[in-house]
């Protein structure tokens, strides 16, 4: 079965690029452009993985992560932070909230992101 990845990204260029590549790679990809939309998508269907941006309108990534961790059904969704911010405080908080990893967008190619997602999803039980 194809893995369901939720990509949360407010920048339309980055959203388009990442979505295109993940789909080419064979993932089912849903997208959200802000934190509130992300929670709405999650509640429609629990994804296998969330790729979560931090700096976003309405509700930022850490807010989304906290909300997911507080929900009975969303608590154990694997979440990877995919951000261009490298504030130590945010990295620390993300890890405290149980993010699996913290990736910096500009340091990764789309191919590397796909490979990493692939690896993560094969490690986590479906």
């Amino acid at each position, binding site marked *: 079965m194809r893995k369901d990845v939720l990509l949360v990204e407010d920048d339309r260029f*980055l959203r388009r*690029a990442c979505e295109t590549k993940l789909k080419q790679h064979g993932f089912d990809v849903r997208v959200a452009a802000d934190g509130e939309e992300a929670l709405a998508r999650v509640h429609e269907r629990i994804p296998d993985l969330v790729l979560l941006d931090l700096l976003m309108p309405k509700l930022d990534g850490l807010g989304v992560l906290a909300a997911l961790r507080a929900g009975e059904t969303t608590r154990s969704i694997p979440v990877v932070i995919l951000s*261009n911010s490298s504030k130590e405080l945010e990295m620390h908080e993300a890890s405290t909230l149980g993010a699996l990893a913290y990736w910096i967008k*500009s340091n990764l*190619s789309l*191919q590397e992101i796909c490979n990493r997602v692939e690896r993560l999803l094969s490690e986590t039980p479906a």
Partner: protein
Amino acid sequence: MIEQLRAEHQLRAQYAVVEALASASTLDDAAPRVLRAVAEALGWAVGALWIVDQTANQLRCVHIWHAAGIDAHVFEAETRQGHFPRGVGPGRTWELGHPTWIADVTREAQFSRRAAAEAAGLHAAFSFPMILDGDVVGIVEFFTTEVLEADDDILRMFAALGQQLGAFVGRSRAREQIERFFTMSGDLLCIAGFDGYFKRVNQAWERVLGHTAADLLSQPYLNFVHSSDRIAATSELARLRTDGAVEFEHRWRCRDGSYKWLLWNATARPEDQMVYAVARDDTVRHAAEHQLQETLRMRNDFVSFATHQLRTPLSGIKWMLELAADTDDSDEIRSYIGDARESADRLIGLVNDLLDASRLEGGKLKILLERVHLCDVTRGVLDDVASLVGEKGHTLVVDASDTLPAAMLDHQLLRQVIMNLVSNAIKYTPSGGRINIQIGQSRDQLQWSIKDSGIGISPAGQVRLFEKFYRAENGLTVDTEGTGLGLYLVRLIIDRFGGTVTCESEEGQGTLFRFTLPVILETVS
């Protein structure tokens, strides 16, 4: 028998003087008691005490005493007002440096207060110097109603008394000097008891904190310490009792309710249950330190936010090129490259904004002043955004006065201001909105405003709107693609031209941005 009586009187006089000196702390206090004690013990009528005024180099009367029944008011007035240099009047004893005796002052040609003495019925006089470290510091003189020949016993006795009085003057001067330090010190000095109350505070307390000494002494001093610092203060005081001396710092409440940082240096004397402490107002240093931390924090915030803002379009370029490289479909390639170019434009826009902000902040941006018409600049901007306005279906109305004067401004910078405000209004107003621009003049100021029918900005957001990299909390107004520098630059530029920029908004009611600029007409250089 008479000898015995006299010796007894002298002894009584000496004893009375010792007692008077023991109970007084200053010469002003001691003088009346000493004069009275001696005069009464010896049965003399009038006594006066003089002090050497070092600056004027003459004697000044500290006090004059007379027995009941003596009408010496003229003599007293002359004595009080007299200023005798060395060698004149009582100044003779000063010059000689030892006790002197005059059998009858009314027959003494050199005695300047002769007439007054005669009127008061005074005849014999003796005086002796008060000596401190070998120097005459004052003179004491006594008068009696009889004519009396010199009495060596009395003179000898008073030579010794002069030493005692001189020593007293020395002690009280030393005390006054210490007292002066205590009073004048810019630092806050205090003596406090182990019972938690101040016993003494100097005037600096009132100058620095505003509390009177009475206020400070009336309640436990911990009451004046900031509530968050009280636990620390209590433990410092406990440490003071065991260690003997400590240094610490906490906030103290001022009379006006504000707080000041006091840096303390305290020493305890357990044997008399007292704490002697000096405090310095350290508020300015604290504020500077706080300011420095704040500056560092802001710089860090700036660097991390700028990093984020730069990485985002860079990631866009990188990823779009990666996608373009992976496909053979020329339409797809063209589309990816188009997005990469747009990201590159955003990156350039951001870099330019950062550079402009940094130059404006440092006052280094080159400004080209020329005759500029606000209406012309506005028209130019509106031409550029016409298609965007059309896309969103906004109605844009310009209401401009025809008679506006041209002002000396930088055309490019003014255009940047208007472009920022206009594109914000277009962007943050939901499709089909109304945007009104008004351009006018009020006295010597040009006024330009733009009102949109957008969802508005919260009061808290309005306050911070013109900050660097501020993004309004209100979700719909967050500019996910902007640089976070637009309104900050608007403010910097308007500031640069001596104008003001403000924002009025009510959530749900739209937003009004207004800037004013002074009309600076062309000057002949």
